[in-house]
């Protein structure tokens, strides 16, 4: 078997073995989304207006929640050292690790989001745009979050620090993502927002793996 495919399978397999932990972000996602109708007002008119924002903020928080410890265990077990010392591309390995995280953690959020957003009186016709936006957004957020996890891998108790570091960086994704869904619900053209989101997606996927590998290497140099 190709070594890269073997590596990816082993990463996904590992997350699957610890699926109870991968399930936490999903449970968090569902609970937070259902808090809003309770706290604000169950009137459909209001819910429809806030639905995309609620889902997007919720997805963002749930993704970061799971990402904070992305490299922690590999770091503590000394496996990350072996990654860095491997005579192969660290960038590609990091890329596969983030994709495997996305598959196990963010994909279930995307699958769950139509159910939640329909609870919030969001029109069915705009679901397609919401899902496309969420796909682009969660991948981008996963890479950004992985960068935060890599920068703080050698620190203990870094959860809040990662959030503070990343949330400002993630706001453009939130703005374009939530607005594309809102525009679609309002029967306006959501494309410009989606295109901007796609730009961020390609920039992040292309450049951030390099930054993550540098951050990981530096954490061993000191």
């Amino acid at each position, binding site marked *: *078997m190709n070594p890269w495919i073997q590596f990816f399978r082993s990463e996904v397999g590992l997350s699957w073995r610890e699926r109870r932990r991968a399930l936490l972000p999903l449970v968090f996602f569902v609970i937070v989304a259902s808090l809003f109708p309770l706290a604000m007002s169950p009137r459909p008119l209001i819910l429809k207006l806030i639905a995309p924002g609620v889902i997007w903020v919720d997805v963002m928080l749930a993704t970061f929640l799971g990402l904070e410890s992305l490299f922690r265990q590999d770091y503590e077990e000394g*496996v990350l050292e*072996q990654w*860095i*010392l491997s005579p192969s591309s660290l960038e590609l390995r990091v890329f596969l690790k983030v994709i495997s995280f996305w598959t196990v953690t963010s994909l279930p959020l995307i699958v769950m989001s139509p159910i939640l957003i329909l609870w919030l009186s969001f029109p069915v016709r705009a679901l397609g745009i919401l899902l496309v936006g969420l796909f682009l957004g969660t991948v981008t957020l996963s890479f950004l979050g992985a960068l935060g996890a890599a920068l703080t891998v050698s620190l203990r108790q870094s959860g809040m620090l990662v959030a503070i570091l990343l949330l400002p960086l993630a706001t453009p994704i939130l703005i374009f993502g939530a607005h594309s869904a809102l525009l679609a619900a309002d029967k306006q053209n959501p494309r410009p927002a989606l295109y901007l989101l796609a730009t961020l997606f390609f920039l992040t996927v292309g450049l951030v793996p390099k930054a993550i590998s540098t951050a990981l290497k530096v954490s061993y*140099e000191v």
Partner: protein
Amino acid sequence: MSSGLAIRALELRRGRRLLSRSLSFELAPGGFIELSGPNGSGKSTLLRVLSGLGRLEAGELLWDGRSFNCASDEHRSRTLYLAHTDGLKGALSGEENLHLFASLRQFRDRSEEIQEGLDYYEMTGLKSVPCLRLSQGQRRRIALSRLRAFPASLWLLDEPTTALDRGGIDRFADHLSDHLAAGGMAILATHQSLPERLKPAIRIALGRSS
């Protein structure tokens, strides 16, 4: 031009602390170096620099008379570094860990060699148990099987015999002798004395850090 590894005027630092101003030695194929010194004297730091994990502050490294970069793929594929953490994923079994390691080293199929390595360190019976449930000594044996299953001309070993029982240490000593007899090199940082028959080419005692 000498074959083997040569270090000239290497400066060792941990953080801002200077551990060694100018370290020089040469190691010919078939020999090994025993690093000793009190805690914090820079044994691990030296191994990390040579593995490419730590940063080279100052100094020159030569392989077969040619200067090299520790972070190059060429150096990485001829070196195996074993840190005091075993580098094993707790959720995976010993065998799965070795297969994962094979994918890190870009090997397609190493099943036979992995089997042989586990056999050698008498871990065949426990190869399917998650490493989390193994004792420290057993984990160490699995980590050492790596050296058996994956060829490398330079071993960098940080306290390789920690937690090993007598039999395990003997096994390791035999293994090291085989490696050296085949023209391999090794640098060991150790507090425990190795069996008599293993004679290091050089003993380097790093000083107390001040």
